[in-house]
């Protein structure tokens, strides 16, 4: 655990990507199995211990530290694991040597909600503050130290001089501590077996188009549907076949959308947008659509659930609008140009049930200007903008320059007043970086009040963050723990993709993806927008 803790600390303080890769690669080479495999799983977010949650740590700390002192400390540090690692009382008697990573994983995995309350403290007693930090980060499954899963895999590939694409390919067939992966890369063994496994293939992603223009001879355009990007994989095997649904990050979300699993019975790997049936939105552009897709708001009700009720299945049935085919009946199509893959997909789709699949139609435009006009006229809630795909591009993992572009539609804008600010966490700990803002429920000069309409924590630069932080500190009316109520004098121009009716919010409205567009230091608060302006933008 000491070496792993030292690695985590070094990664926290290292800025350059290459230096981070070198640190991880050195660790992976120097550390024996299975410790290094578990460490790699921790770095790539592969760990989940059911008994250890952030709330477990909070509860343990509140037995050892005055709850008010704990809260004030947690608020200052902005990270529960780090605060606990610093405040954990040093044991008074001799303790066992620190556990290794594999031992720590075994102990954590064996804990239950009850035993964790005695066993986790015994482990923490065996560690110094850095070790406690590493252990708690590992145990709660959220390292948040600026290392993406991808970076961990690249470091692995670099450590043993193997291809990262191969690592990605095998990754999803294996479980931590990845013994077969190390045996192959470090020990020269045969590659892991992946035949007939419903593996996730890394998604091909798009760059923002920004101000660029492309020729419609080279690129095809599609709508960018406002659901979640999914990959649906079916393999045939001795049990009759298996289907899995993966999210963009490679998480297995099959259990959340069981209705899709039976719908694909032919071996294939398909890329598409998961949507739920709803009003007729999206139907106009899509002649195979059975009534169209509902807005993201409707889909959101179904996300993140481990089980689904019958009622939900009938009220908001899911379907996939297909974009691409990576493999069909054992044939890997990824090296083919997009136009060929599209041909395969169009021939394949009649073999799928209409109820659960349709095809994302190509948006026909003679030239780029015409495409721009089509984009400008689209105000459908299920459409986020356009995708531009190079006709001769193969399907490759990640974002490759010049192949795919996303051209989001222009956001909606509204002027709101800053009402509350909360301290951020992670790299923004101690800065007031999460803002709740509101609109007037009438004429502010005639006594109208602000109603909170949304929350945002992005869209500003680090310099702007410092200025807003200073504004919050100097214009505080009230403090509620980590939250400050401000004097409601600062106006934000807030950008957002859409706005919906919502019973969860006091204002009755919920914005989709609000972010700070501009800070209007110059604008008096009473000139900010009223609720009526926001309500006029609802398209539900």
């Amino acid at each position, binding site marked *: 655990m000491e070496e792993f803790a030292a690695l985590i600390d070094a990664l926290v303080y290292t800025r350059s990507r290459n230096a981070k890769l070198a640190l991880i690669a050195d660790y992976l080479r120097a550390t024996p199995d299975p410790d290094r495999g578990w460490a790699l799983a921790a770095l790539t977010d592969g760990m989940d211990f059911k008994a250890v949650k952030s709330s477990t740590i909070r509860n343990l700390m509140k037995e050892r530290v005055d709850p008010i002192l704990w809260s004030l*400390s947690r608020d200052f540090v902005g990270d529960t694991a780090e605060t606990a690692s610093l405040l954990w009382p040093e044991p008074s008697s001799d303790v066992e040597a620190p556990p290794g990573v594999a031992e720590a994983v075994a102990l954590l995995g064996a804990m239950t909600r009850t035993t964790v309350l005695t066993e986790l403290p015994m482990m923490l007693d065996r560690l110094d503050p850095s070790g406690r930090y590493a252990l708690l980060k590992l145990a709660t499954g959220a390292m948040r130290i600026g290392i993406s899963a991808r970076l961990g895999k690249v470091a692995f590939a670099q450590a043993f001089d193997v291809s990262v694409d191969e690592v990605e390919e095998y990754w999803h067939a294996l479980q931590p501590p990845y013994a077969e992966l190390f045996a192959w890369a470090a020990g020269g063994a045969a590659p892991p077996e992946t035949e007939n496994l419903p593996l996730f293939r890394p998604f091909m992603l798009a760059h923002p188009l920004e101000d660029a223009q492309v020729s419609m001879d080279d690129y095809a355009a599609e709508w960018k549907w406002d659901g979640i990007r999914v990959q649906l994989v079916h393999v045939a095997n001795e049990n009759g076949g298996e289907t899995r649904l993966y999210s963009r990050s490679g998480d297995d979300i099959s259990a959340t959308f069981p209705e899709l699993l039976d719908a694909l019975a032919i071996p294939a790997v398909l890329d598409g947008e998961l949507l739920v049936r709803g009003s007729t939105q999206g139907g106009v552009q899509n002649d195979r659509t059975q009534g169209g897709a509902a807005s993201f708001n409707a889909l959101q009700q179904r996300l993140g659930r481990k089980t689904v009720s019958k009622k939900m299945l009938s009220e908001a049935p899911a379907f996939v609008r297909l974009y691409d085919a990576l493999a069909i009946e054992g044939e890997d199509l990824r090296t083919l140009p997009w136009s060929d893959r599209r041909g395969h997909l169009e021939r394949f789709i009649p073999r799928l049930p209409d109820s659960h699949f349709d095809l994302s139609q190509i948006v026909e435009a003679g030239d780029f200007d015409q495409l721009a006009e089509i984009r400008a006229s689209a105000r459908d809630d299920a459409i986020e903008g356009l995708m531009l795909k190079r006709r001769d591009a193969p399907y490759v993992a990640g974002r490759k320059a010049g192949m795919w572009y996303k051209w989001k539609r222009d956001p909606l804008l509204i002027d709101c007043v800053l009402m509350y600010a909360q301290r951020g966490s992670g790299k923004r700990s101690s800065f007031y970086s999460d803002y709740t803002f509101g609109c007037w429920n009438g004429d502010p000069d005639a006594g109208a009040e602000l109603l909170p309409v949304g929350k945002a924590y992005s869209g500003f630069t680090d310099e702007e963050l410092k200025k807003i932080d200073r504004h919050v500190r100097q214009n505080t009316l009230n403090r509620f723990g980590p939250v400050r109520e401000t004097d409601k004098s600062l106006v934000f121009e807030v950008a957002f993709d859409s706005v919906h009716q919502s019973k969860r919010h006091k204002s009755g409205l919920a914005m989709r993806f609000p972010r700070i567009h501009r800070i209007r230091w110059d604008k008096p608060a009473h000139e900010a927008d009223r609720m009526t302006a926001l309500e006029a933008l609802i398209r539900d």
Partner: protein
Amino acid sequence: MIADFSWIRPEPHGIHVVPADCWIDPSRAVDKALVTHGHADHARGGHGQTIATPETLGIMKLRYATDEGATSVSYGETIRLPGNVDATYIPAGHVLGSAQILLEHAGEKVIVTGDYKRRADPTCLPFEVTPCDILITEATFGLPLFVHPPIAEEVGKLLKALHDNPECCVLVGAYALGKAQRVIAELRAAGHRAPIYLHGAMERMCRLYEEFGVELGDLRLVADHDKEAMRGAIVVCPPSALNDRWSRRLPDPITAMASGWMRVRQRARQRNVELPLIISDHADWGELTRTIEEVNPHESWITHGREEALLRWCQLHQRRARALAMVGYDDEDD
């Protein structure tokens, strides 16, 4: 007479000693100021009269280029202020010249600690525990998570980084008044005799320390030397210069910062620090609470920093305390 301490009033812009009509560490210009130490947030310019230790007055003269209205008072010396108020300056152990100010009036004793620490520091006299009725204490590091490790450990980390990376230089961000000189003096005490290179903004303060008898060894200016000469050397600069264009003239610098805030990882990350050194000139949580216990005042008034947590500690230990709302004291660089 009933002890009511109405003669001393905390105001947002400083502590007002009413019968003497003078202010302690006022954050705006006043007729008569008592100044605890030379950091800019405590020692502002433009007062009619400034009463402080000779070292603090020397620091202020360096900064404001004038010593008009300066009245010097040595450690242990008591001066009589108007309205029958006596003021005594007592070492605070924070930086060169730093003082607690003991105020006595009508049989009541009030101490304003200013900023202080309880650890040994080769550049200034140690804090002296003095009994009083009201202790007005700082709380910059007033959270239980702040535990400053022994400075020898942190200096050891710095020397190890230097030793392990002979092709680089280690750039240490340190407050130009106090922290920089303490780090240099501690490096010397640890046996590091090599030249130490200074950012231009550090030079005059280091010279002033030397005039007051603090030996800092072979100091050189970055501006006078070639990039190559600084390989394998320690360079000291103000924290603001760490990520500045200025540091590009250095040979492959490893960025270090000497500050109590380095205890929190994300604080170090926010400043792009690669080598955090937990070195502070303020009292840590243990020192703050121990000092309240040892001074054992009738009541503690808490200011500058994380007042709420220290206030809570006082409640838990059945000690009378209140938090003051003062503005303009900012020790983010400590």
